[in-house]
């Protein structure tokens, strides 16, 4: 039923007529828009629950009008950043210790190994410490250690960024890597496949 069709309401009961005119007035500066809170941004559900029970239409005036809402530092979105759900997940509860950190636990798998490990990239300060940690975790499965980032290494370390692309670890500054890494893989270099 299309509630915006005046013709239907003129035939309906006076209750419907009242409903329509109330929404026309709009609540909270929304200009007649009823926000059902279905946007991806409505992760913090407590922000749109009306403080009074929604009997009739009186409650609609208290719904948040997202177009005009200014985001406090508590919310996961800041300024005009585009809505990236994965990014939002990272920032969510960034202020609380532990919760925000969970997003920085990244899976690491190694070619030929059945069991993966998880590494918290926030705990590592640099690529060197990351290489050391990974060598500790996976090195015993090799003859002479991983030797990541070294020319003579038979392994290369790659990562998947938030766009789903696989990249070489070490190409970008550390902070940028931490912000975008989604998953890592220790790949065994196959000399037979290298063109040089």
């Amino acid at each position, binding site marked *: 039923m299309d509630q915006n069709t005046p013709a239907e309401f003129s035939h309906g009961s006076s209750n419907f007529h009242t409903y329509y005119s109330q929404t026309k007035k709009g609540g909270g500066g929304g200009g007649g828009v009823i926000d059902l809170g279905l946007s991806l941004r409505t992760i913090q559900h407590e922000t749109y629950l009306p403080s009074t029970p929604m009997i009739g239409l009186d409650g609609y005036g208290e719904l948040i009008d997202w177009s005009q809402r200014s985001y406090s530092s508590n919310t996961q979105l800041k300024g005009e950043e585009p809505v990236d759900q994965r990014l939002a997940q990272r920032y969510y509860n960034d202020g609380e210790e532990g919760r925000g950190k969970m997003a920085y636990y990244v*899976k690491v798998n190694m070619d030929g190994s059945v*069991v993966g490990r998880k590494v918290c990239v926030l705990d590592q300060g640099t690529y060197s410490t990351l290489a050391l940690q990974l060598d500790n975790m996976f090195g015993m499965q090799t003859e002479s250690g991983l030797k990541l980032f070294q020319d003579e290494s038979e392994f290369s370390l790659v990562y998947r960024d938030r766009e789903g692309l696989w990249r070489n670890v070490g190409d970008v500054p550390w902070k940028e890597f931490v912000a975008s890494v989604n998953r890592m893989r220790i790949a065994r270099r196959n000399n037979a496949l290298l063109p040089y």
Partner: protein
Amino acid sequence: MDGAPYLRKIDLSCYKGYSDLLKALESMFKISVGEYFERDGYKGSDFVPTYEDKDGDWMLIGDVPWEMFECNCKRLRIMKGSEAKGLGSGV
């Protein structure tokens, strides 16, 4: 557990943390999994406790905070050393 005749079912919410869970598994299967080190995993045993997460990947138990593990864990599997270290004919 690899080699066991049948599967068991447990409720993760019954356990307060990893040591609680591992003790229960050791008791259930009459094994020892050794001690967990962040560096090199479980030392002192041939058995490796792993879990399957929501993505279907098999990960070592103990790397992430307990609450995160509880949310992501779908299945547990106690692997025998050789396969867990990737030396088996494996998956």
